[in-house]
């Protein structure tokens, strides 16, 4: 589904991503792990075009998206969350999610006469269904700046789902969550996968990674050092080296 081929990214001589190739298959949850500074977030910023790759190519569903503009990416069906939560603080939970429909709803200048058209009713219903799935439906009218941390993380996920994505890219969705919130998240993500979506997740919480992922890729110093199923990764000496250093 998503194919990354020999991707490089240099920041003024600093090599952040050094020839990473990986492929994500439809319907799987792919975990991306690695020590801090390994280049995980840089890699997904390259995929979502927040950053320009130095060289290499990115293909999604058979289409080359390497040269696309950042705002075009979601039209292909790629939605993402951010490591440091990015929600629309002064808007309600409902409007935050509703904004996710920007790509397929009537959202040009003609939308100022939106009240004349009836398609909004179904879209509103879709928003409420997503909020119900994510467990935010009773908070739909709360302004986001009054929301708890865990709820904001969930809201970001709801906004992602509202874009009707094929691939969800989640940057540390469990960061800052307590164990019971993490359990709920694991169940929600599994449910999202089962509804036919593909997920690429960066996470430090091994409980999330080991319980959820079908395959795992390990990054270290901008290169992919290992890839495989959770059990393969757990016993891979290169992974242990990346996290703990080698014996010498």
């Amino acid at each position, binding site marked *: 589904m998503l194919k990354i081929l020999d991707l490089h990214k240099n920041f003024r001589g600093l090599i952040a991503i050094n020839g990473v190739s990986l492929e994500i298959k439809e319907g799987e949850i792919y975990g991306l792990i690695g020590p801090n500074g390994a280049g995980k977030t840089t890699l997904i910023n390259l995929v979502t075009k927040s950053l320009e790759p130095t060289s290499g190519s990115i293909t999604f569903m058979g289409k080359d998206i390497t040269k696309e503009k*950042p*705002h075009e990416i979601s039209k292909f069906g790629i939605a993402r969350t951010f490591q440091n939560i*990015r929600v629309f603080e002064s808007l309600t939970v409902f409007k935050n999610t509703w*904004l996710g429909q920007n790509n397929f709803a009537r959202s040009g200048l003609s939308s100022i006469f939106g009240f004349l058209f009836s398609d909004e009713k179904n879209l509103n219903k879709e928003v409420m269904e997503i909020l119900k799935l994510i467990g935010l439906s009773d908070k739909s009218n709360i302004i986001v700046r009054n929301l708890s941390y865990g709820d904001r993380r969930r809201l970001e996920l709801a906004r992602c789902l509202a874009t009707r994505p094929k691939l969800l890219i989640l940057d540390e969705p469990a960061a800052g969550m307590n164990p019971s919130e993490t359990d709920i998240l694991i169940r929600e993500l599994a449910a999202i996968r089962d509804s036919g979506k593909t997920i690429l997740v960066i996470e430090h919480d091994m409980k999330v990674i080991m319980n959820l992922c079908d395959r795992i890729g390990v990054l270290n110093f901008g290169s992919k050092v290992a890839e495989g199923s959770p059990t393969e990764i757990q016993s891979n000496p290169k992974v242990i080296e990346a996290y703990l250093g080698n014996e010498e």
Partner: protein
Amino acid sequence: MSYLGTIAGLIGIKTILALSVFLVFLTGQLSLGQGAFFGIGAYTSAILTMIYGVPFVLALIIGGAISLVCGIILGIPVLRLRGLVLAIATLGFGQMVNAFFLNWEYEVKVNNMLIGPKAGTGFRYIEPLTTQGMILGWLLFFIIFVYLLERSRFGYAMLSIRENEEAAQSIGVNVTMLKVTSFAISAFIAGVAGGLYSHFITFIHPLDFDYRISIIVLAYVAIGGVESFWGALLGTFFLIGLAESIRFIGEYRLMVYGILMVVVMIFRPRGLIDRELFWKFQNIFYKHRS
């Protein structure tokens, strides 16, 4: 025209100008160049009516349109900047336009009288074509436009840029296009306000359109509240009303004015009207209706 009539007209024109500032705010941009767009509209429409005999309404719209074009030309390179840097760039644009008006002479003989802008002496003898009713009409038109815009997906997409540019981009909002659009519409509105102004006051001078007017109108919006266009309306009414009602204390009124601005910013940093307040009112209204 009576004193109150003039004040009422000026409040109307400045409210239109405040709406134009609010539109730039909608995408989270800060413009200190609104005075320039105001001036471009004022000069253009006055030249059109006085020298070329263009009907007033048409002259107003052309004035707005030329302002809009200038907005796009300025907006495309400048809107890549953010915050303070953008403010300074727009300030620079404002001063540039101002310097142009301060040097520009374009006088034409109409009915044996020299008419037109004459550099630092200004543009005199403009026909008083603007009536209070006309100002009210345009004001209502722009209010309805901004009201509808604020509720539309287009308006919310603009808002999402102010709230978080990266997040807006991630859901498919074309950030550059919307920023330039909001800037252009805002320039149009300021241009129309300028045309109304020049045919209301009948004499315009380059210094009417320098950074001071930009900053004053910005203060109206900041104090009224940037989260809803009601803030722009309230801020303008409140500050002009205040400035006029304490005229009896002479020039000390500017001090009172300044103190009040500081106090409002300390206690209501999002302005007098913010979204919470707005929602409270809206909920009361809906409850009564249903």
